[in-house]
């Protein structure tokens, strides 16, 4: 069983979305998994990102999709986009 180091709530949530999107057991996906190991190709990647965008209400730019190669990168990317989004909706301070 692959180790699950430092998988926080967000990481676990992203992993569940990836597993659901690819119709694979969630236990087979860990933070250390690469897309190559999981047999996820670029077309699968587009589908995964589509599901992540829906789940987390974020928008992933095209360049971000093309460079995704691992679960860890995906979690980091989602985290960054969520943070960016929360910063833009924060009310401005005079």
């Amino acid at each position: 069983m692959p180790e699950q180091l430092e998988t926080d709530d967000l990481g676990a949530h992203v992993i569940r979305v990836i597993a659901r999107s690819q119709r694979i057991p969630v236990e087979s996906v860990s933070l250390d998994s690469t897309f190559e190991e999981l047999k996820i190709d670029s077309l699968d990647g587009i589908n995964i990102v589509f599901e992540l965008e829906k789940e987390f209400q974020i928008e992933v730019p095209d360049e971000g999709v093309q460079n995704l190669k691992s679960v860890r990168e995906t979690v980091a990317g989602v985290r960054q986009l969520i943070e960016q989004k929360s910063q833009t909706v924060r009310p401005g301070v005079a």
Partner: protein
Amino acid sequence: MNRVAVTGLGLVCALGNSTNESWERISRGECGIRPLRDPGNPPYKFRFGAEAQTFQPLDYFTEKDLLLLERFAQMATVAAREAIAQSGLRFDSELADASAVITGSSVGGQFSEEEGYIRLYRENNPRVAPLTIPRTMSNAGASRISLEFGIHGPAYTVSTACSSSNHALGQAFWMVRSGQVTAAVSGGSEAVFAEGLLRAWEAMRVVSPDVCRPFSADRRGLSLGEGAGILVLENWDHARARGAEILGEIVGFGMSSDAHHITQPCVEGPAKAMEWALKDANIKPEQVGYVNAHGTGTQANDVTETRAIHSVFGAHTDRLLVSSSKSMHGHTLGGAGAIEAIITILALKHGIVPPTANFTAPDPACDLDIVPNEPRKTSIEAAISNTFAFGGLNATLVFKRAL
């Protein structure tokens, strides 16, 4: 086997509503990929497209005609009118039975289909327009052409995504060559700027946010385009006997399937299509001077096409001119093969190879002479035109200058 002459050309695209108008601009390297007239709400991620902006249906059809004709079929019909007029052919009873109409279109009448869905799903109106099916069906162009010109022979439409019209032209070429028909009106069309279809393309993340830059290091994807190309193919002796002007010759056709991935291209499949096309044409790779590339401007296509060309042409690749006219008229999907066939024939006829427009910087992985930005005047004996479609379906046509 008969030689196959091309005796008529008809073209509608972002660069013009006729062959001459379009060729004048394409041969100069003018880009027809412009900001979309309707940027979408919310805006599409891509801002540009090659729309046939000056194509006004009422210039060519009555309002009654248009009840049955969707944009893709309108453009195909107008292109057919131009090609058949140029050929001078009259489809009298004998020729009518001995002529074929074979067109390519990947999705047919999208606007009508979407109107139907809007009624059903947005307006909750279960009654759609009665003419939805005749407008939507991918064969609407072929059927209209057959109806308008009284052509009774074999008529059908091929749908193989971006290779649709190369497949259609290839089949038509083989039918004339084998003597099954005396003439064929063949090509293809696509009208892609329907909202649902644009959103579907947006979701694939292969459309460039700005203009496409085939073979450039900083290319970011394709630019969509609309248009139609129709060619009149004719038994060579038949064309000569009646004193027709022969614009070019189709000499070979090859097609293959990657059997690799539903969207990602590979090198071997396209290489086979090109090899088999040259074999069908009975010409050696060294005789080819120009390749009108599939050249979509995606990262994947341009590098795999480069490798495939190298594998087929070997050392001769250094002497090949390879350009992507999609850099000017966009990727016209089901219409691509036909529009690009016309451009290739005219390149041979006029001795001008159109450039790959919008080129910025070379990509070492695309080590070809891609005729960047400026056209090249040069006399060429033979040329090929490639289309490599989603689903891994590849088709290549081989042309010779008419001698």
